[in-house]
């Protein structure tokens, strides 16, 4: 999932300051799971902003809505009536959702309410960890399903380095050494021979460093 974190209330207050009628628009997919922008978070933020504005003597009208996904136009359309009643939309979706809204509603300012942080997993209740960098050239088959590009601080493809201690990374002792995890996993899978393969320097053209990427599926285009 895409993991995001709600912006501090003070920053959100600044962002919405020019507007008197705003729509807080939640997204019911990734940001809901990481407690940043689902229906509950929309309700809490709306209540907090109403209280803050009333305390500051500022009049504001806040409408609340959560749609299934803000990164797909089919779902975004559902928000059109609410958007038309607002001077601005505070989106609690990831950056893709904010931009998808901006594309659909050309005349309404769309404002970010969260900071999009990474592609990750729910490690345990309330703890989210980054596990994919979206490099565009996945080799998890060789690494036993553990990504050194994302989870090794040095992004070593032919690791490990000499700094791993008791299975922990020398950069941060709270972080598991990705290469320790890879070796343990390959041992369990009986695939230790994978470590004999030389992995050449990565071609980063498929990553974001090659500019914004686009995926085209001709078979789905009419």
């Amino acid at each position: 999932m895409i993991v995001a974190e709600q912006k501090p209330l003070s920053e959100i207050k600044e962002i919405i300051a020019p507007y008197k009628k705003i729509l807080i628009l939640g997204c019911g997919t990734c940001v809901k799971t990481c407690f940043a922008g689902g229906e509950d978070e929309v309700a809490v933020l709306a209540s907090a902003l109403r209280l803050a504005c009333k305390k500051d003597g500022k009049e504001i009208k806040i409408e609340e809505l959560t749609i299934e996904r803000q990164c797909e136009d089919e779902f975004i359309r559902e928000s059109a009536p609410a958007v038309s009643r607002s001077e601005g939309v505070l989106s609690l979706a990831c950056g893709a959702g904010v931009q998808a809204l901006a594309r659909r509603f050309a005349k309404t300012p769309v404002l970010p309410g969260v900071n999009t942080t990474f592609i990750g997993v729910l490690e345990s209740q309330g703890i989210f960890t980054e596990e994919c960098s979206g490099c565009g050239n996945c080799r998890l088959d060789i690494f036993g399903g553990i990504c050194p590009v994302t989870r090794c601080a040095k992004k070593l493809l032919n690791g490990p380095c000499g700094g791993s201690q008791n299975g922990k990374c020398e950069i941060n002792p709270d972080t598991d050494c990705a290469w320790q995890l890879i070796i343990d996993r390959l041992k369990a899978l009986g695939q230790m021979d994978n470590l004999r393969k030389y992995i050449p320097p990565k071609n980063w053209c498929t990553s974001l460093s090659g500019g914004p990427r686009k995926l085209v599926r001709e078979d789905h285009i009419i």
Partner: protein
Amino acid sequence: MDKKFIPKITVFHCINAFSQTSWSSVGGNKFEIKFIKLPCSSMVKDVFLLRAFEAGADGVVVLVCPEGQCRYVEGNIRAKKRVAWVQNLLDDIGIDGRRLSLSNIASGDTAAATQIIDDAVKNMAELGPNPAA
């Protein structure tokens, strides 16, 4: 401070920790109180606490079972964490997180409940009316 200030207190409570029927107010006209009963304190969501302030409460008290005695194992711990979260949010809003408090209370301990609410009323006398009410 305005001498006519009558604090409005909203009490969210677990029905296993506290019963409104076993409690009689000795506050007279010193404060107004509203009880909201919950099957477990874990049901007290962040937004309920905030909306109590939106509805005009000057202070909010959450009464939960003693730690280790929640019928649903960890409901009171969840409530404690949510209250701490909302206290920080109230500070960010600028209406003072001390307006919200949580207390552990054993079932039937009406003396403790009276003391907790008395303390909340005294606290409100110090903090004054909710500036966002």
